[in-house]
């Protein structure tokens, strides 16, 4: 089993999955081992689908890049006055935004 980023577990869908699995585990419907396997499968599925099937593009245009950091192959950006553009061309503005980006070409 190759390692994948586990950061997608903190997304809305990932949290929902985790909560459901916790309920099952506390009811003893499934074993704790199985919970871990399910989450690993989730990671693998999310990573592959995001890389291949999802084609949406969000554009972030900011007035100022306040700070950046690149360490351990992870980029962190702090931007000010950001305009986020939907694929449907709807734009929302935010005063501050922090982006944490992992390398997409490598895993783990």
């Amino acid at each position: 089993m190759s390692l994948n980023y586990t950061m997608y577990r903190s997304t809305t869908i990932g949290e929902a999955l985790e909560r459901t699995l916790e309920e099952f585990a506390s009811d003893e419907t499934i074993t704790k081992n199985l919970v871990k396997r399910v989450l690993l499968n989730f990671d693998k599925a999310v990573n592959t689908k995001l890389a291949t099937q999802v084609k949406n593009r969000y554009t972030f245009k900011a007035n100022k890049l306040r700070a950046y950091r690149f360490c351990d192959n992870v980029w962190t950006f702090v931007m000010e006055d950001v305009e986020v553009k939907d694929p449907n061309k709807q734009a929302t503005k935010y005063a501050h935004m922090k982006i944490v980006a992992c390398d997409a070409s490598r895993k783990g």
Partner: protein
Amino acid sequence: MAPDSSDENNTFSASSAVPQDVMTISINNVVCNYSLPMHIDLRKLALNTWNVSYDRSGSLLTKQKRHPGCHVKIYNSGKVYIVGCKSEAASRQAARAVGREIQKIMGKTDQRICLRKFRINNILATCKFPFGILIDQVNRKYPKETYYEPELTVGLIWRMTEPKASIRIHTTGTIVVTGATSEADVSIAVEKIYDYVKDFQCDSSKTARNTREPRKRKSASNEAEIKRSKQKMDNVFVDDETSVNWFYFPYFPFLFICMHLVF
């Protein structure tokens, strides 16, 4: 000849050398390096600092500072290189600021950390003399100190030993000083060059290359206009007195071709 203390511009004038005009020397880049007497954990530094880039594959951490604007390279041995400051004082200030940050993050605030072997490696400065310069004559008169290869570089390179600097002299009168180790050296170098070069002054409009408008493509139907433009090209070559411009013909292959067309 003390430099002005204007921090915004970082220029200072060589006013004693020139009678009427005041020439401003603008310092574009100051490169310095020093070493800190401790081993630096680059990863810890990268995680606790902003505007930092640390690639695991190299042992190098790069940082950018906003005030004063510069790029900093830090090695885990403690060596620090700072590039991009606009003055010596700013460079020193940046060096101390970086040293202080490293000291804080490495947790050595109780010890006294000094910047060891702080030295300014290179200062790049530019200056514009208010006259044009006939650089091939300068090259002829001072063959030992100068190097002029028009087919390689546009300017003449003068290697000065006292103070140690490398100076590029252009026909437009622009002087670029590189390799100097202090602002005082830069001003001394510019003054010395002025003394050497002021005998070879010329009107800068004669040496300016862009007196002619750029050639525009004209449609073939407009024959009269084409003939007129060719005659204009013809006239330009005729009335040059100095031997200098003939020397520069290889620079303008399109004019060379035009000459073939005319004759």
